Structure formats: C-alpha cells, structure tokens
C-alpha cells in the first residue's frame, strides 16, 4: 500500500520502519510530516485571528489517483525502493499531523529529492482543500504562489 487518504492519525516511526523492514538494501529513508499551525491563518497578525481548527475536504477517487500518479512520476525520476504517502482528511486541530511522505532509496540524495518533489507536487496537484476556523469565522485557505513556484522547480524541459 503506497497511498492512503484517511481520517485516522499515523505513526511516522512505524511507516518509516516498514519501508526497510525485512530487507538489507535500503540505505536511506527521507520523510516529511506536515502539521496544522495555529498561526497559519493568511494575513493573521501574531496572537490574533489564530486558527482554532482546520477541515480538509478532498475529491474521493481522484485524490488517490492523483497521489499515485505523483508517486509514479517520482519513481520514474529517481531510483526508489519504496514510497509511502498518507494524507488525512476531516477536522484537525493545531499541532495535529496532516500529511506524511517517506521515500526509501539506496542513496540519500535520491531519497531527499523524491520526498521533496512529492510534497511539492502534492501541494499543487492533489485535490485537497483546507478550510480554517478562526474567531472571525470559517474561511477557505488561498493557494500560495510559493507552492506553484516550488512545484515549478521540478519541471523537465
């Protein structure tokens, strides 16, 4: 199982260990955990307008397909021995884990590059939307240009 979209939390240590369990050819596992930040509200000044919770909506069916395509694209670009992507949906509180990506490879350069690539592509291509709850009410998070430019770095000419 490479890709999961779920309400449940995950344990990064268990997932990382699973990528090298029972084998002796994995040299490197790079991974990433994204979390809900209380101060993330767009344009919020410090201490005011904090995020109290976040709800993640997605497009069931397309989400899993899009994540799998991103993983397949990474597998074509680097020599990978295993990939694991978990994205949570539903209502999450500040400090809670949202997303997990881990990549196993013989070499650390490939593992790091593929892990960052998958996160960058996930941010711009996987159909998830965040709605923040703040004292001022609920609001949908705007897409950030910095995410588009992060994904754009990986374009092949």
């Amino acid at each position, binding site marked *: 199982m490479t890709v999961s979209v779920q309400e449940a939390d995950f344990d990064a240590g268990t997932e990382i260990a699973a990528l090298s369990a029972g084998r002796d050819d994995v040299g490197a596992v790079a991974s990433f955990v994204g979390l809900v930040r209380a101060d993330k509200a767009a344009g919020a000044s410090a201490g005011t307008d904090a995020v109290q919770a976040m709800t993640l*909506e997605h*497009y069931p069916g397309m989400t899993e397909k*899009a994540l799998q395509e991103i993983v397949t694209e990474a597998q074509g670009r680097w020599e990978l021995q295993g990939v694991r992507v978990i994205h949570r949906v539903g209502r999450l509180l500040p400090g809670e884990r949202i997303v997990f990506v881990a990549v196993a490879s013989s070499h650390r350069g490939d593992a790091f590059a593929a892990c960052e690539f998958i*996160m960058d592509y996930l941010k*711009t*291509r996987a159909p*998830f*939307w965040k709605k923040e709850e703040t004292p001022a009410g609920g609001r*949908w998070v705007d*897409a950030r240009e910095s995410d588009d430019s992060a994904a754009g770095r990986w374009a092949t000419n």
Partner: protein
Amino acid sequence: MTVKVLFFAGLREALGTGSESLALPGGVATVGGLRDLLAARGEPWSALATTKNLRVALNQQMVGLDAPLKGGDEVAFFPPVTGG
C-alpha cells in the same frame, strides 16, 4: 449527452451544491463550454466565471478548458488545491 458535474470547497459552498447530473444542449462540446453554460444561470452560478484560477478535472484528471466532452463524463470544478 449527459455528464456528471462536481463542485468542491469554496465553489461548492458558493453554489450550495456538490454535484448534479446534466443533459447537455448540442452546442456544448468542451469543459469550457460546460463552464459557460453553468455560469450563464446567473447568481450564484456566475462564480464559475469569476473564481480565480478555476481548476477543472475531467474523469479525475486535471485538464484545460478546451478538453472535449463525451456522454458519461465526470467533470469537476474547483479552486486551486491547498492540501499538504
């Protein structure tokens, strides 16, 4: 021909609905044509014409507005994604 249309996130909320099944008139042959047809219903549907960087998926693949439609297609309209 009939297509299934889906809306997500802020667009879903603005339209007050997440999906509908729609029999297309003869002149509508692309997802862009479908977008224009829906937007022409007036408020709140004009959000489909005014949403910044509106995204479209055809059968769960991101496409441009010029993508051609056929009967049974699933077309989804949504704002830029913000997961991760």
